């Protein structure tokens, strides 16, 4: 569970210098600090170059769990892994979970994370009943509806240090997931996106839906997954401990377009050989396939990677998703692990929350060089033109101009930012505005 380095984000590839402090040690640092959880953010929202990182890993205790109402109270450094295990033993589970359980509750709120059930459940922030926020000049308990609460959910840590949280969990029948898979993408790229959207639309009874797409393939072929909770096996209540680890960094010459094509092709063939349309599996495997390998970020080499995630509004989705992905492919950008998913229209309480009703796509780009970065800048413009946005929690490269187009409400967060809190991300994207 240890991050490779406390100074880097999960996407690596950047060098930053920090002073390290611990949440719980009083007083708060008196200049430029940033709360930091388990450092799983891909980009520089969890980096504060030249300043202080305020680590929450000693503040990771569970405080109380009401097993009749499903409300769990914990310190903000508690990991979703710990909460999920305790909850599951009592017939509850996380209402929303990202693709790794090794994140803190504080981080999940600060980035207002979403999961495969966004259409049904919305974002993580919707389940926060209350939170305690420590700012340089005050400590207060915030509830949904408070202006500072809205700024803190998806506030990227900038409003202060979240200390305690009360979170509403959901009832589940057990630790199993019934999963169905279906291949899509037999005609062309546009038809492929249509096919995916139709599969999703026909999955109303399935809370979890997601598609894997081969962004290196001209037809944008892919695999559609949908899942629902089921009882499963009692032995599934405990996750299989993480024993696999990547001992070395992947050498850079292996991370080229040809290898991305080969990797994606191999994955697609493996899926197409799997003829069982429906299976039951432990929910750990369904939600967190990559958690089985610790330090999997080393697979992308020393120079790190960018995880590019954008969302485009519903009306524009089918054309612009196709256009943007075709643009990335024809620019010869090597992308792995493409993921496509629709967001529903359940509103988040977070002022700066990323999801909007529409379609979101995520691709991993290893060791991006000048050419890849230019291609991503063009993709940003295509996203902005249809009124979409790019996910700050995963970003390390978007321009300040683009950020402000994606999030015109950023000034409201700036107004409520704790004056002593800052991050490399915030300085970068607000640099030529009125921000610090």
């Amino acid at each position, binding site marked *: *569970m240890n991050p490779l*380095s406390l100074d880097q984000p999960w996407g690596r590839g950047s060098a930053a210098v920090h002073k*390290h402090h611990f949440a719980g040690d009083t007083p708060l640092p008196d200049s430029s600090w940033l709360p930091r959880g388990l450092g799983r953010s891909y980009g520089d929202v969890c980096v504060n170059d030249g300043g202080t990182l305020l*680590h929450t890993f000693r503040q990771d205790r569970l405080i*109380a769990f009401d097993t009749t109402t499903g409300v*769990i109270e914990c310190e903000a450094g508690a990991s979703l892994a710990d909460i999920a295990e*305790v909850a599951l033993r009592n017939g509850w589970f996380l209402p929303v979970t990202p693709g790794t359980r090794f994140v803190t509750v504080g981080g999940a709120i600060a980035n207002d994370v979403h999961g495969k059930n966004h259409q049904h459940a919305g974002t993580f922030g919707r389940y926060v009943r209350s939170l305690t926020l420590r700012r340089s000049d005050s400590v207060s308990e915030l509830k949904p509806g408070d202006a500072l609460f809205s700024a803190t959910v998806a506030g990227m840590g900038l409003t202060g240090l979240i200390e305690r949280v009360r979170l509403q969990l959901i009832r589940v029948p057990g630790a199993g997931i019934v999963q169905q898979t279906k291949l899509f993408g037999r005609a062309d790229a546009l038809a492929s996106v249509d096919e995916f959207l139709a599969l999703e639309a026909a999955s109303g009874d399935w809370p979890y839906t997601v598609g894997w797409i081969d962004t290196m393939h001209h037809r944008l072929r892919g695999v559609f997954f949908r899942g629902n909770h089921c009882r499963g096996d009692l032995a599934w209540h405990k996750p299989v401990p993480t024993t696999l680890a990547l001992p070395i960094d992947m050498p850079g010459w292996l991370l080229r377009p040809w290898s991305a094509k080969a990797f994606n092709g191999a994955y697609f063939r493996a899926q197409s050989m799997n003829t069982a349309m429906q299976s039951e599996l432990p929910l750990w495997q369904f939600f967190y396939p990559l958690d089985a390998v610790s330090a999997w970020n080393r697979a992308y080499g020393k120079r790190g990677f960018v995880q590019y995630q954008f969302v485009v509004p519903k009306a524009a989705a089918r054309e612009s998703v196709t256009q943007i992905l075709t643009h990335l492919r024809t620019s010869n950008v090597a992308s792995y692990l493409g993921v496509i998913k629709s967001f529903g229209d359940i509103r988040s309480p977070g002022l700066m929350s990323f999801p909007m009703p529409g379609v979101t796509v995520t691709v991993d780009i290893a060791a991006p060089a000048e050419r890849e970065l230019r291609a991503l800048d063009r993709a940003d413009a295509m996203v902005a033109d249809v009124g979409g946005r790019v996910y700050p929690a995963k970003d390390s490269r978007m321009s300040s101009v683009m950020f402000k187009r994606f999030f015109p409400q950023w000034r409201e967060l700036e107004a409520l930012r704790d004056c002593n809190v800052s991050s490399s991300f915030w300085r970068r994207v607000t640099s030529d505005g009125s921000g610090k």
Partner: protein
Amino acid sequence: MNIVIVGATSAVAQSAIRIWAAGQHSFVLYGRNASELEKIAADARVRGAIEVTVHAGDIASVTYAQTAVANLSTTHIALIAHGSLTLSDRADTDTDYMASEINVNFTSAAAWAQLLANHMATHGGGSVAVISSVAGDRGRYSNHAYGAAKAGLSAYCSGLRARMWRRGVHVLTVKPGFIDTPMMAHVTKKGVLWATPEAIAQGIIRGIERKRNVVYLPKFWALILLAVKHVPESIFKRLKF
């Protein structure tokens, strides 16, 4: 089972409590910081512990240990985890500091081990796990005072094990190497020698279950210390590590 933890706020102890809590045991926790102990107790309850009692006090005091153990009910497992990383340079010039550190790291830990072992012997047996250190295997330049106290503790446990095994009490000496605790977070580039508190805690629990005598955690430290112990003193005195 009833589990007693001395020095419950230490990172390794907290990790061990979390692992044990899921197995539905009862705990008595001793430590110095009352509010931290309460948080750890709440955490253990949420994770499945049946009953958790906390006692905040001067655990480095032998008198405190005597009273505490006298009031204990049947105990099956005890983990003695308190300690203080002595600053060698300060111990060089401040012998009051040196003596009080040796009291924390050796005298008080040995007293708890002795008292708890006696208590278990009269209440149907049990296991006492004592956290010593690889530092106790040989006095080194960089931690002579800490190493000496841990050497004393390891020796005490070895003798205590011999005196207690026929009375049904198992004594486990735990010798961890570098532990990646929050206190050590300033070392941001840690090599392969560093282990997490979770890994150390798992090793301790395994050692108790398998009734081991001495465990180096992680295991490779046994090899390193074997080498360290065989360096001739004439050379060893020139080494600054």
